[in-house]
């Protein structure tokens, strides 16, 4: 059950569907990454920054009150929310900035949805004094104004994207357009395990630090591997980062949680794997949301980071091969989980991660019905500070109505 990467493909998924202008840059990046990958100096430098700057390893925290509440699950949270900048995104951006330096590129561009990847990119660019432009949909700029300010504070330029649905997919289009004009001097740091080869594979490798650490930590804590790994899936970088080091252990359930938005029976969700079909967008062949004429359907989720109509090709492969399963959680359930983790554990999760937390209720029910117990590692991909303002609108009514525990 290995990854079967050949010519940049995971099974039938992936590839390199881009305009000719970008092909030479992708070939160059592939070579540079292969060189870096086998260069101990690169790994040492990266490990050093991950330790000293990002604060790795992040804890694997046993969420006792949450576990008690669920009854039949022993839940460990992989605390990516404790990474510098508040999410797992920095694992990738630092690694790519180091790569960009090897390539001699002086400018960094990136797309961002929730703004977490934009902040992580701006941070890494600031660390090395590189020029940095971040494309962000106008819709997301409205939802995530604090992250916009953070990026500016870090010296990046935030360029509003007004085309299409004005969200992550359109920001990605615009960044690719910039890159076709600027590729000789500029490196594009894609924020998730999507895009043309070698991005999905390379970013998977960078994010796999999550699963590698979690594996060591759970062995240390429990003396055994977990029964299940759970993580949210937008583009799918935190989930693939957690899953990858466990893929070969076929007894371990891998569960990706997609954005159910307002429900799969509406067109307003972000569940490419659960409700999409195979197509080509942003350089790779993968499950997507599109209509009968091939036009991309804008995704919807309360969480900007899951608001994407595609998914990383390796997830498509894991779904197709049956190695991982993918489920959905709707907006209102994610919001409830957002509140629940805050109250039970003193941890305010990102809306994205709250989707994974919410799914635990269903996993507990399944487990209870089967009459067992499960040890679960859940990737808490980011902290919820960025979402607090938005949550206030949704939740204050709920908090007023309910008795606070």
């Amino acid at each position, binding site marked *: 059950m290995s990854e079967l990467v050949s*010519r940049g493909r995971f099974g039938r998924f992936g*590839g*390199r*569907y*881009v*305009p*000719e*202008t*970008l*092909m*030479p*840059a992708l*070939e160059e990046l592939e070579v540079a990454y292969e060189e870096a990958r086998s260069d101990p100096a690169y790994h040492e430098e990266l490990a050093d920054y991950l330790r000293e700057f990002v604060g790795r390893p992040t804890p694997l925290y046993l969420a006792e009150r949450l576990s008690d509440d669920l009854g039949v699950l022993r839940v460990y949270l992989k605390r990516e929310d404790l990474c510098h900048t508040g999410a797992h995104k920095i694992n990738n951006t630092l690694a790519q900035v180091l790569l960009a330096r090897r390539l001699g590129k002086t400018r960094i561009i990136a797309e961002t949805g929730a703004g977490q990847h934009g902040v992580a990119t701006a941070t890494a660019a600031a660390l090395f004094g590189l020029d940095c432009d971040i494309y962000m949909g106008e819709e997301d700029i409205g939802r995530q104004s604090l992250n916009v300010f953070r990026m500016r504070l870090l010296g990046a330029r935030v360029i509003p994207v007004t*085309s*299409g649905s004005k969200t992550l*997919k*359109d920001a990605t*289009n615009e960044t*690719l*357009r910039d890159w*076709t*004009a*600027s*590729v*000789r001097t500029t490196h594009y740091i894609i924020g998730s395990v999507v895009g043309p080869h070698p991005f999905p594979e390379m970013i998977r490798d960078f994010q796999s630090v999550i699963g590698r650490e979690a594996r060591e930590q759970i062995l240390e804590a429990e003396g055994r591997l977990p029964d299940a790994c759970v993580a949210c899936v937008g583009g799918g970088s935190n989930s693939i980062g957690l899953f990858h080091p466990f893929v070969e252990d076929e007894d371990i359930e891998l569960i990706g949680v997609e954005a159910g938005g307002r429900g799969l029976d509406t067109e307003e969700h972000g569940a490419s794997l659960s409700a999409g079909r*195979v*197509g*080509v*967008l*942003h*350089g790779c062949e993968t499950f*997507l949301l*599109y*209509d*009968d*004429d*091939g*036009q*991309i359907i804008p995704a919807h989720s309360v969480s900007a980071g899951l608001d994407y109509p595609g998914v990383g090709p390796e997830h498509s492969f894991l779904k197709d091969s049956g190695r991982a399963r993918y489920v959905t959680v709707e907006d209102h359930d994610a919001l409830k989980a957002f509140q629940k983790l805050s109250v039970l554990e003193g941890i305010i999760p990102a809306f994205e991660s709250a989707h994974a937390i919410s799914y635990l209720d269903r996993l507990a029910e399944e487990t209870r019905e089967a009459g067992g117990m499960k040890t679960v590692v859940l990737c808490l991909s980011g902290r919820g500070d960025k979402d607090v303002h938005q949550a206030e609108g949704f939740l204050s009514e709920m908090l007023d109505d309910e008795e606070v525990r």
Partner: protein
Amino acid sequence: MGGRLEACFDRLRTEGRAGLFPFITAGDPDLDFTRELLPLMTEAGADGFEVGVPFSDPLADGPTIQRSSMRSLAEGTRLSGVLEMVGDVRADIPDTPLVLMTYYNPIIAMGLAEFVRGASQVGADAVIVPDLPPEEADALLGIMNDYPLDPVFMLAPTSTQERIELVNDAGGGFIYYVGQMGVTGARDALDSDLGATLARINRVKNRPVLVGFGIKTPEQAAEVAGHADGVIVGSALIDVMEAQASRESKMRAACDYIASLREGLDRSKTVS
């Protein structure tokens, strides 16, 4: 294969002229307009056309073609409708090469085989898929092999010698040279390396080369034609039509513009 394209390039060569291939987004503002416009532009001096299929996420295109695609999609244009329109217009311009240009996902949605069969049935001569480099094109090429439909691939200022050879070998019809870095869109100045890169391509090519991206004025068209077999003009043409309000004035402006490019080109000669 590609009888009309071959005949067109033969004629251009004999006459010592450069080809003029306008790009238009099918269905902007609606398909009836496109159907009417193509024959008129032929009379105004166009040698062939690129008929663009609108797509929701046109990542190789600049603002002009993005807007044009959105107008067409808002009008309800579908790939099947574009094919039908091509079939209709074929009757009016029986010898003019018609090249379909579409992103890959609409083809996938229709089904590769159905698309290829449909396109060749309605009399399209070639297909350009900007997000499908030769490396990923095996499935489509395998089907196109059985039909008189040429696959056209692109080269760019960044293309290496290796890729020039790859595209030359894999493609049919002509080579589409992307004359500048970045997305489609009219520019005030041409890429200064244009001549040098085209010289590299001309040394290995065994099919005509058309240059697109960024060409706006008759003078630019003439300069480009000095290094290539013809030019593709898209965004500048759409800009000209966008500036007009009524259908009649859009068509008139388009034809006047095409005529001015024709005149500019006829002052130059092709290299081959």
